[in-house]
């Protein structure tokens, strides 16, 4: 009854549609009258000003505040997006970042000792946590960390005269897409290794592909099914036996941080996603940070600069003759580094270990609850920080996701990893309470018990309902145009 009475859901006009010619928002200090044509060359000036929105400050505020209210985040909803570690991002991190906002990358290092010390200590701490010998903080995200790591491996092989010989990178079929994409960007041929019935890399298949042509194996451990690769030491041995390097995709480090170190597992290179494991806010898709740690033998190839300590002073060392070069301007996403630093200092060794263990406990607990609700668990054993579930036969994962939206939950990752049909990849993280997991499990159960019509129509009360993806792909409309 109420429904008929309510006004239609409010449309959200574009900022361009709120624009009024001549309206002003923020005003900069007055510019003197200049003969720009004379100063800059009339042939260099643009003919038409860019058609940016013309809005006042209040309209600006209402617009973006309004948009934020059409958005779910960890701070508003449980957000068990598998492979993404959507844990709580402590508010104190944002305050910390503010203390270091006004530093220019080219200012005299004597005037940035606090920032350099922070980076230096973070390099050390990340080595300690990963079991590696040296770290670069430069990569801007996980995928760039991957590229950096693979290029380091390539440089290493080249330094041993094996650049031509080693042309293949092995990647399990459960791997995240960025792994094969990275290997391609580094000029390698990618070979996919099938997963065995236990969800782990098929060791025999792997061994069959191993040989002097292999540059690296890229593994995620726990893998994207949330399962620990139990034969990891054996894999490492096999890889090293043929001269291949073992690469650790750290997207899932949250499961084992502090509890087991990639370095100790036999990995030669590891990248971290500071925006996952180390609570840099995900920001709607970045900016993140993807530091790379390496074992001793790979250290000479790290990107320049490195932060070093000489006596009591910290400085940037560019003198790395074997470096793969630079992967990003300046020193990486410093603001993200501050947050990771703060996180590590707050938790200490015990807090880090405990957080990992509770991430694992939460996932296992939720897995048990979902089983009772009727979900299938294709690989049902002790999982790590996440697990993959499937809805009961006849229910589509997409519908489960959309139904969850209606129930006030952000859905898990769907249809990934590709090797599980109708996959729901659930990562609750260690910062969610037992009651939240229980309520979520109940909602999941309710959703799959809804009738087909309801499910296929869901969600109903979100700012928009299901969107036409096909139309967007066929006739993408990628910008607003004046006169619309």
């Amino acid at each position, binding site marked *: 009854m109420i429904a008929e009475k309510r006004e239609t859901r409010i449309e959200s006009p574009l900022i361009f549609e709120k624009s009024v010619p001549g309206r002003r928002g923020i005003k900069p200090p007055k*510019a003197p009258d200049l003969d720009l044509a004379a100063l800059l060359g009339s042939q260099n*000036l643009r003919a038409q000003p860019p058609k940016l929105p013309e809005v006042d400050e209040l309209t600006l505020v209402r617009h973006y505040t309004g948009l934020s209210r059409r958005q779910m985040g960890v701070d508003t909803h449980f957000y068990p*997006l598998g492979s993404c570690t959507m844990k709580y991002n402590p508010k104190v991190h944002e305050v910390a970042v503010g203390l270091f*906002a006004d530093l220019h990358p080219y200012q005299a290092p004597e005037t940035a000792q606090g920032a350099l010390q922070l980076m230096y200590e973070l390099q050390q701490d990340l080595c300690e946590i990963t079991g590696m010998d040296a770290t670069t903080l430069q990569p801007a*995200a996980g995928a760039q960390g991957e590229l950096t790591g693979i290029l380091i491996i390539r440089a290493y092989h080249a330094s041993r005269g094996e650049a031509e010989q080693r042309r293949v990178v092995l990647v399990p079929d459960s791997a995240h897409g960025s792994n094969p994409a990275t290997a391609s960007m580094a000029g390698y041929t990618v070979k996919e290794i099938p997963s065995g019935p236990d969800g782990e890399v098929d060791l025999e298949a792997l061994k069959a592909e191993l040989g002097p042509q292999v540059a690296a194996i890229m593994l995620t451990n726990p893998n994207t099914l949330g399962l620990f690769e139990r034969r990891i030491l054996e894999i490492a041995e096999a890889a090293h036996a043929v001269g291949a390097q073992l690469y650790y995709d750290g997207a899932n480090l949250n499961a084992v941080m502090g509890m087991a170190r990639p370095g100790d597992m036999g990995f030669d290179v590891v990248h971290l996603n500071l925006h996952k494991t180390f609570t840099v806010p995900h920001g709607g898709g970045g900016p993140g940070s993807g530091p790379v740690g390496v074992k001793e033998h790979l250290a000479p190839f790290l990107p320049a600069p490195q932060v070093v300590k000489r006596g009591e002073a910290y400085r940037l060392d560019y003198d790395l003759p074997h470096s793969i070069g630079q992967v990003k301007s*300046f020193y990486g996403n410093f603001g993200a580094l501050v947050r990771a630093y703060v996180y590590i200092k707050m938790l*200490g060794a015990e807090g880090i270990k405990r957080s990992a263990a509770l991430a694992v406990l939460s996932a296992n607990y939720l*897995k048990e609850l979902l089983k009772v609700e009727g979900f299938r668990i294709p690989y049902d054993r002790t999982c790590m920080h996440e697990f993959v579930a499937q809805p009961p036969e006849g229910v589509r994962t997409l519908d489960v*996701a959309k139904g969850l939206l209606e129930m006030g939950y952000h859905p898990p990752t769907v249809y990934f990893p590709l090797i599980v049909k109708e996959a729901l990849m659930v990562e609750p993280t260690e910062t969610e309470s037992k009651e939240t997991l229980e309520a979520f499990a109940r909602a999941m159960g309710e959703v799959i018990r809804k009738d087909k019509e309801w499910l296929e129509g869901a969600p109903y009360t979100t700012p928009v309902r299901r969107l*036409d993806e096909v139309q967007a792909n066929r006739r993408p409309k990628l910008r607003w145009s004046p006169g619309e």
Partner: protein
Amino acid sequence: MDYTPHTEADLKQMLERVGAKDLKDLFRDLPQAILDPPLDLEPAKTEAELMRHLRDLAAKNQSAQAGFLGGGIRSHHIPAVVPALAARAEFLSAYTPYQPEASQGLLQAIFEYQTMISELTGLPVANASMYDGSTALAEGVLLALRESGRMRVAILKGVHPEYRRVVKTYLDAIGAELVTIASPADPLPPETGAVVGQNPDFLGSVHNFTALAQAAHAAGALFVAVVDPISLALLQAPGEYGADIAVGEGQPLGNAMAFGGPHFGFMAVRADLVRQLPGRLVSETTDLDGKRGYILTLQAREQYIRRSKAKSNITTNAQLTALMGAVYLAGLGPEGLKEVATRSVAMAHALAEKLSRIPGVELATPKPFFNEFAVRLPKDVLEVRAALARRGIAAATPVPAEYGPNLALLACTEQHTEADLDSLAEALREVLE
């Protein structure tokens, strides 16, 4: 202090339910030899302790706010509204908007951002953001090589040296060649797939790349322009001078300098290159009720669909910092951006004038220049930078020797006043005495 909510009772019940005897037991699949190693980290701090430590650390830095350091990062005023809006918790704590019904806020903001970048660059399609200017360039160059089917890139020396280094890393990776050319008038090497120029260039000079873009096209190459977003309030848009791809660093648009990051890179291209674009793209579409909405699109370009055939491995990009850029652009509008640019230009020219009156100081950037210029100093640049810093002035970015000896970059922004320029001139005079 960690952020886990579990009480003792919770722990007990949960462990029981999952059939583990204690937390360590959950790691039973791991090789026990490597489990639970001792970790040599500092003892945990509480938030109160931590904040005091951080304040001490921060006190060891000197603010470069309203300084004159240039080289790609500048101290423009950041309107308070920009971080205030971007810091809304929903933006901060969301991830890639794979579930569009839950993410219309971000998706619409990205769609608007794409439009703004398209407007600035004069090119019809912009993606949702790249990591930063340097990697946006690297990806832009890769795109050009994909499109041209060639493996050689000609890059002007005027392109930021760090960007060139990053491009080199990315090209090395696929075995492509990077050739540096000194001037836009120089002949292009054969079989070039991409020609790259920066405007204003690293030393601040303004160029007209119309001829270069034509030359590139004539040679079968794409022209990639590296541009400063604020300069585009005044200067020809890349689309106007025939660039196929435009990239740049977004920091000047409302992002804190933050010791070099995080910021964002932007990328815009010709319409027919859209399916070659790396990264996220948002499209308008309609929902079941016919209502307008926004959604990620053309995902077949991306790693999670295409894997080793993807256009790039990029996954997480720089959404929040790009959002700050969008809020900045919308907040200033065309007129405000023009005023920022104009005043920056005015201040830079006034400063150049003042500094070149100092004995031994010589303007080293060919005119016309924009908001930044290089001077040749009669003294070691690192020493001068340090001496100015001791006087409380952040200035004199050292320029790599390939551009000539003893060069320092100076950038001006709309924040500067005549008094600031005089202080710098006076301090520099003292330092050089």
